[in-house]
């Protein structure tokens, strides 16, 4: 699994678990904890499943509950219900979903195949254990979507970790390299409880773990902490900030005078690229497409029109896309993460923009730093997704009841066939080549 701390209990299906010997003590302890948690969850799940079977609400809910139960207990899956790739995620995510149901009471969530999306988190979740105030604050900002976007969340998390590390003191009879991670783990779980972790956060945490376990035991504590903070700073600088600048340089070259650039929702990187191109006196116009639930395009629109002279912008909602696509010379979109098979996991709606652009032979460029790479395959955005919190559903929207569910998925997955190029800091590459870049795999740290 690409994000060990996120996915929680290793389902028996995941085989990528490193052997126990190669793990540090901290990692082993963490693994034990996770397995214990998994067992508990499994028990609970089975109990729930049996209860459901005995009450036998309707034949349908049973049928759809079954595959989920099976994935939890590791028995062979029913072939009908889920695509093979999503099964891996369904295990982890389904647990979140059912956990949500448990805490929300016995409210039925309609069709079972959607249950693994998990309920949108309510903002005031409890603080369990010894959580640093900076993390509590960040958790709130995440769950309220005050900090939103893969880059922003990763930077915010790493910055908070710096505070946490500085405030940390190694207990007696322990070493920083062994103990710090056990201190950080609950902090991370707190953030995950606030909002499911982004791939970027997972990658950064993995790198951080590696650095912590590799830090010298003989180093004085303060020096070790300073060294870690320095490493974090470097990570933010190298993998995000400098990477963005390189991507801006590369992408700006693809915008020519007279072009019409289409973008969907708001990517911080695309925003920077457009501002940069404008600063270079390129004459182009922008079509900003947008959609519920988040309507982030309005924020982008505000930034673009506040330049002098304002960039000429057209704003439309997603259904207007077919009417506009003929005008477009290039589509620039951001990404949440990039997967081994070349699919791009991004804000829901991106896939349709890319699909239609491909149909009209308009190049689609995905702007994405290499640290967003995730070592997993994603065939559709069904296995793993996240729902927008209820505060984004407008007041005039119908309220959910027994027959009506309001689903606001946040992400979708664009197949590599719809993407012309991925603009990364190592150059413009086809989406399927991302796995051949060692940097993206984290094999070398800059």
């Amino acid at each position, binding site marked *: 699994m690409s994000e060990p701390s996120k996915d929680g209990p290793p389902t028996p299906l995941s085989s990528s678990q490193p052997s126990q010997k190669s793990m540090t003590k901290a990692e082993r302890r963490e693994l034990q904890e996770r397995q214990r948690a998994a067992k508990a969850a499994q028990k609970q799940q089975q109990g729930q499943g049996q209860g459901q079977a005995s009450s036998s609400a309707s034949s349908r809910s049973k049928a759809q509950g079954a595959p989920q139960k099976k994935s939890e207990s590791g028995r062979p899956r029913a072939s009908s219900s889920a695509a093979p790739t999503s099964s891996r995620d369904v295990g982890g995510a389904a647990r979140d979903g059912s956990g949500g149901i448990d805490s929300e009471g016995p409210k039925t969530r309609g069709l079972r195949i959607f249950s693994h999306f998990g309920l949108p988190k309510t903002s005031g979740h409890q603080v369990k254990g010894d959580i640093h105030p900076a993390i509590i604050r960040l958790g709130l900002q995440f769950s309220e979507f005050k900090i939103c976007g893969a880059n922003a969340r990763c930077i915010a998390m790493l910055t908070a970790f710096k505070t946490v590390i500085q405030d940390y003191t190694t207990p007696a009879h322990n070493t920083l390299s062994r103990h710090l991670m056990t201190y950080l783990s609950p902090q991370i779980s707190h953030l995950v409880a606030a909002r499911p972790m982004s791939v970027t956060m997972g990658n950064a945490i993995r790198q951080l773990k590696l650095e912590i376990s590799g830090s010298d035991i003989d180093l004085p504590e303060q020096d070790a902490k300073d060294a870690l903070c320095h490493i974090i700073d470097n990570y933010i600088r190298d993998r995000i900030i400098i990477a963005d600048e390189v991507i801006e340089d590369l992408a700006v070259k693809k915008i020519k005078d007279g072009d019409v650039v289409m973008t969907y929702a708001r990517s911080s990187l695309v925003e920077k690229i457009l501002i940069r191109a404008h600063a270079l006196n390129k004459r182009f116009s922008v079509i900003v497409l947008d959609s519920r639930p988040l309507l982030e395009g309005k924020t982008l629109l505000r930034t673009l029109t506040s330049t002098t002279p304002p960039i000429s912008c057209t704003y*439309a909602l997603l259904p207007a896309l077919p009417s506009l696509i003929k005008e477009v010379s290039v589509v620039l979109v951001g990404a949440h993460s990039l997967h081994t098979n070349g699919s791009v996991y991004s804000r829901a709606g991106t896939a349709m923009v890319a699909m239609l652009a491909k149909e009209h032979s308009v190049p689609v460029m995905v702007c994405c730093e290499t640290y967003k790479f995730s070592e997993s395959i994603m065939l559709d955005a069904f296995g793993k997704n996240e729902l927008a919190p209820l505060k984004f559903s407008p007041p005039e929207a119908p309220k959910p009841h027994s027959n009506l569910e309001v689903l606001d998925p946040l992400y979708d997955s664009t197949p590599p066939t719809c993407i012309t190029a991925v603009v990364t800091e190592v150059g413009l590459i086809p989406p399927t080549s991302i796995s051949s870049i060692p940097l993206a795999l984290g094999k070398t740290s800059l």
Partner: protein
Amino acid sequence: MASDPQMLANQRIVEDLASRLRRRQVVGSRQAALETLLVLRQVVSRARFSNVDQLVDVIRSVGRRLVDAQPKGRAHSFLYEYADFNHGSFITGTSEHSVGNTVRKVLHHIREEYHTATEGSTPAPAPTFSIAKFVSQGQPRKQQTVQKNDAAKVPLKENDPDDPDSFARTLKPVLMEAIQDVFDELETVYDNISKNAKDHIHSDEIILTLGKSKTVESFLKAAAHHRNYTVIVAETAPSFVFSSFHDHGLTRHFTRYGGREMAKSLSSAGISTFLVPDSSIYALMSRVNKVILGAHAILANGGMFATSGALLAATAARAYSTPVVVCAGQFKLTPLWNLYHEYGALDFGDPSSVLGFEEGDLVDKVDVVNPYYDYVQPELLDAFITNYGDHPPSSIYRLLKETYDDEDNEL
């Protein structure tokens, strides 16, 4: 003839409907078709004619007036700026195609009645050719044969110099019946489309639909009597739905997201419903078994105009090889082509529903585009379910040939 008080009365009702169409007070294809039919019935009942060509001319001029009255994209004042989006020529510019279609259909029926009346016992023109009749065999389709026998009994005299009204007097009862037939067809259109709903929706299927379409709504509800299935409704921003405007024509309540109304209505009928934003159509498509759409107008090539968002859904469906089924009444068949696949019907909606005036600082800096309709190519569609049976897009042209007369394609 123009000074005739009856003609003046005719003109008044025509102008009344024309202005209501122009102000978009008549919304919805079926509503427009019904209103047109009411006007035509009045016009025919008051018209004075001594041969069939005069009658056809009267009806055609009314039809032309109504079609011309409607809002056209070019003259539309809602869009802040659309000069950039205004090239290419468009055959189709009217918003309610069903007005013209109804006129064509009435003309077709009038000619049919005239032929049977003049040629006596000649059977209706080659019924064996008709695929519509072939598909809908056994369907109680207007008792034409019964009426014809009555009509044939009185000998018709055209252009009788002694009694110029005799032609009209003989033919009018038959014509009124023919118009009544069209009327009945419109009244029962939803029931007839929904009749076979259970054959199209199977148990435990997941159906995706878009926005609010009365036809689709009744189709899905009819299927729910027999099947247990799930509907995902995309809310189609910012489509307008005028609900409950029957009162006085002016008390209109519209919602920005037709899908929300649809989801409310379907779930209250006991169908398990999911309401999703348009953005997640692609993400959920992998689990959808069938996409069921409503149409605004079905074109001669088998393509259609439908609420904007339909093209996205149909394209996404093709990416996943999901069948796309269109439910539409036959009055939506339009003998037009959309050769320039540019902007749907070139009909734009109110931009304030996309970017409201509460975003005041943005409004004057930004162009906002809000098209009403998408043009969906026939390649993306799998079947049309009409009140005249189910047809693939490739046989729509045949259906058109049977429904309308060629000379009426241009009113």
